[in-house]
Structure formats: structure tokens, C-alpha cells
């Protein structure tokens, strides 16, 4: 598996991304990125002409770039990832030194061959979409893509079951010194006022627990994930007399990445970027199917 993440892909780190699943794109071509950038730019400028109310702080005088990130994929059979960026131009001059990045979107497919190979000829599979920036830009870019490539975007939320997989998998990855704690956040249902419980575990303790649970390195089973979580829950119950298993796991944060059930992710280490993207691609594909 490729673990290298050159400079371009490193721009994905430490930003909060909203997750979407995207159905296959019809008649998309990786060779026409410059043309797409011009068309999208024109579409956004047209929105400005229409004078639609777009909200405070959203500047429609933007420069659009489309870039291919060929290193961001699981293997040669995956479509290379594509990064779309909107930068606002200063009103005084259009020199690129005055441009500020205001929105980024990344389409990718990591180890999605089973899905992409079963799709008809003219379709390109980039099922996972990550968006960072104002919601209004996301909506404009999304609707341009939907019109141009006849695809459909859908918000990707992450269930507590999948979050617990992430907690187990990411805890199992090797930890450097001074790594941050593994933190799990639970939301307690059926209360008049919302209550969140935060459970922080020292990363070495968490890894030690996971190491006793996992039988085969490189393989994880549902039973192992359940056992790992049950150990954490009983430990908590012993001390606080609260059954975390009756609450909803809403957020998982480790040194590798941090994920929230409403469908947001933050990548924290470039070494594990592809691994996390592979997991998210799988979630996106199962939402599409």
C-alpha cells in the first residue's frame, strides 16, 4: 500500500472536511480539467450576476482550479483523486499573490475497484467527496457537478457502529511519543437537556488493550471491535456507574484522525491518510448502493 503523501495531498491534513457520497460521473474526462475549471468559474460568476442572496462573507469573484492528485488512490485501478479549489481574488488586482483559498473540494476513490469495475463504460467512479469551506460554495459547486455529470451528492453520516470500528482501527495503528489521547464522545438520549459524555483514554493504554484483543495482525473482526468497546464501557461503568452502551457514540478522536457521526472528518497524520480514505470510500460506496 502506498503510504507516501506528497505536498499536494498534505493539503488535506488538519482541516475539517464534510463528507458526501457521489454517484458515478457521466462522461467525465481527466484530460479536460482546465475546461471544467473555466465552466465552473463561469457558472459561479453567473450566480453573482443573478444577484442571488448568498450570505455574508461569500465572495463570488473567485478563481477556480481543478487539479489531479494521482497519488491519492488505492492502486492503478482507482480513478486518481481530483481537487477543486476556489480562491477569492482581491478586487484591486487579479495577481495570484492576492488570492486566498476560500473553499476546497476533493473527489476520490481509494480501493473502490469492486464498485468501479461494475459500472457501465462512460461512467467515472469517485464516490467519496470531501468539502471544506462555506456551505454556499459547496452548494454551487455541487449543483454544477450534478448538472454537468448527471450525478447525485448525498451527505454521508457515520453510524455509531462504524465509529467504533474507526476507534478500534485507529487505536491499533502505531503511536508516536506524545500522541494525543484517544477520545470518545457520547450523546445521552432522552434527556430534557442534551448531555455529552467525553471519555479520554491514554493512547498507550488504549493500544495495549487493543493489542490484547486483536488476534491476527492486519485483520479486524466485528467480535474484536465489540470486545474492545465492551472493555472500555465496563471500565467506565465501574468508575461512574453509567452504561455507555445505552448512549450514542457521536465522535471518535485519535492521533490518526477525528470523525463525527454527522459526517465530518479531520486527518491528522499523512502516514495514515490513505487508510482512512479507504475506509471512508467504503462507507460512501455502501451508501450509494
Amino acid at each position, binding site marked *: 500500500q502506498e503510504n507516501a503523501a506528497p505536498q499536494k495531498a498534505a493539503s488535506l491534513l488538519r482541516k475539517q472536511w464534510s463528507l458526501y457520497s457521489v454517484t458515478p460521473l457521466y462522461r467525465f474526462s481527466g484530460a479536460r480539467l482546465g475546461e471544467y475549471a473555466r465552466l465552473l468559474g463561469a457558472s459561479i460568476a453567473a450566480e453573482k450576476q443573478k444577484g442571488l442572496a448568498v450570505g455574508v462573507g461569500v465572495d463570488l469573484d473567485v478563481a477556480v482550479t481543478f487539479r489531479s492528485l494521482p497519488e491519492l488512490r488505492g492502486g492503478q485501478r482507482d480513478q486518481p483523486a481530483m481537487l477543486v479549489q476556489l480562491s477569492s481574488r482581491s478586487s484591486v488586482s487579479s495577481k495570484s499573490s492576492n488570492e486566498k483559498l476560500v473553499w476546497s473540494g476533493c473527489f476520490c476513490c481509494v480501493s473502490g475497484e469492486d464498485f468501479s469495475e461494475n459500472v457501465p463504460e462512460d461512467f467515472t467512479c469517485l464516490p467519496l467527496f470531501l468539502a471544506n469551506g462555506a456551505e454556499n460554495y459547496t452548494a454551487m459547486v455541487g449543483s454544477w457537478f450534478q448538472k454537468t455529470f448527471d450525478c447525485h451528492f448525498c451527505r454521508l*453520516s457515520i*453510524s*455509531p457502529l462504524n465509529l467504533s470500528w474507526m476507534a478500534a482501527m485507529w487505536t491499533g495503528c502505531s503511536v508516536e511519543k506524545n500522541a494525543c489521547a484517544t477520545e470518545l464522545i457520547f450523546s445521552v438520549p432522552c434527556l430534557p437537556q442534551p448531555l455529552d459524555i467525553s471519555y479520554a483514554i491514554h493512547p498507550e493504554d488504549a493500544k495495549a488493550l487493543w493489542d490484547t484483543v486483536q488476534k491476527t495482525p492486519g485483520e479486524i473482526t*466485528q467480535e474484536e471491535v465489540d470486545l474492545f468497546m465492551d472493555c472500555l464501557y465496563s471500565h467506565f461503568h465501574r468508575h461512574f456507574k453509567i452504561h455507555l452502551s*445505552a*448512549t450514542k457514540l457521536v465522535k471518535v478522536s485519535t492521533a490518526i484522525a477525528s470523525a463525527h457521526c454527522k459526517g465530518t472528518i479531520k486527518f491528522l497524520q499523512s502516514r495514515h491518510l490513505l487508510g482512512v480514505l479507504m475506509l471512508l470510500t467504503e462507507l460512501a460506496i455502501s451508501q450509494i448502493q
Partner: protein
Amino acid sequence: HLATSLPLPSERDHLRPRIDLIAFMIDIKSKYSLKNVEASLAHVDASFFLGKVCFLVTGVGRVNYCSVETNAVWKLRDIYCSPVLYCELELEGVRVATAQRLLRMLQICAGHIPGVSALSFGSLLRNSEDE
């Protein structure tokens, strides 16, 4: 009669009417409810598993709130040879339909429907699920 777990308190044993059907409720949003049901099952007499037990799984409408794996529920269904009903309590129509199904099952388990026994009905339900 509703109970949060089994066994039922023994003080009221002599006042309790005959139990015809036990429906174990599992909330798919709560791992705790599954564990609770698993612990309670140990207190049920084996004779009940001849068609007088069913599992009622709630909360299935919200896929993204899922804390209980579907396989875990199917394992219970297979181990205890009892059918699984799915219900979304928040939707009135589904609630009413499920209540009617349970009532029908109860009538059969109590012996009120001539010609149909709890055991034959239970195996009928399980076979139709497998298809």
C-alpha cells in the same frame, strides 16, 4: 405486562397469570438493550422457546444511529429459534401494524385460534424469513 429485565420478582409469582408470549425488545440504537436481553434470556424456561418467544427490534428507521449489528440479532434468532419482528416505534402506522401482529401471535400462543399451535406458527414465521 412490561418488565425492564428478567427474572421477574418472585414475590408476585402466585398472583401472576399464565405467560403466553414473551416479546424481547431490542433497541438497535442501544448496545445496552442487546446485552440486557441476552442476560434476561438465560432466565427463561426452555419450553417458551417452542414458539412463545419473539424479538422485537425497534429504531430501525434511522440507519445512521445503529449501534447494534444486524448479525448479532440474527444470531439470537438462530440460537433461540424465535422470530424477529422489526418496528419503528415513532411511526404510528408501523406501531399499530406491529401491535396487531403481536396480538395475533398472542392469540395463537394462548391457544385461542383452533388448528394453529404456537410451535407450528413459529416455524412458519421462521421459514418465511429465510426465503
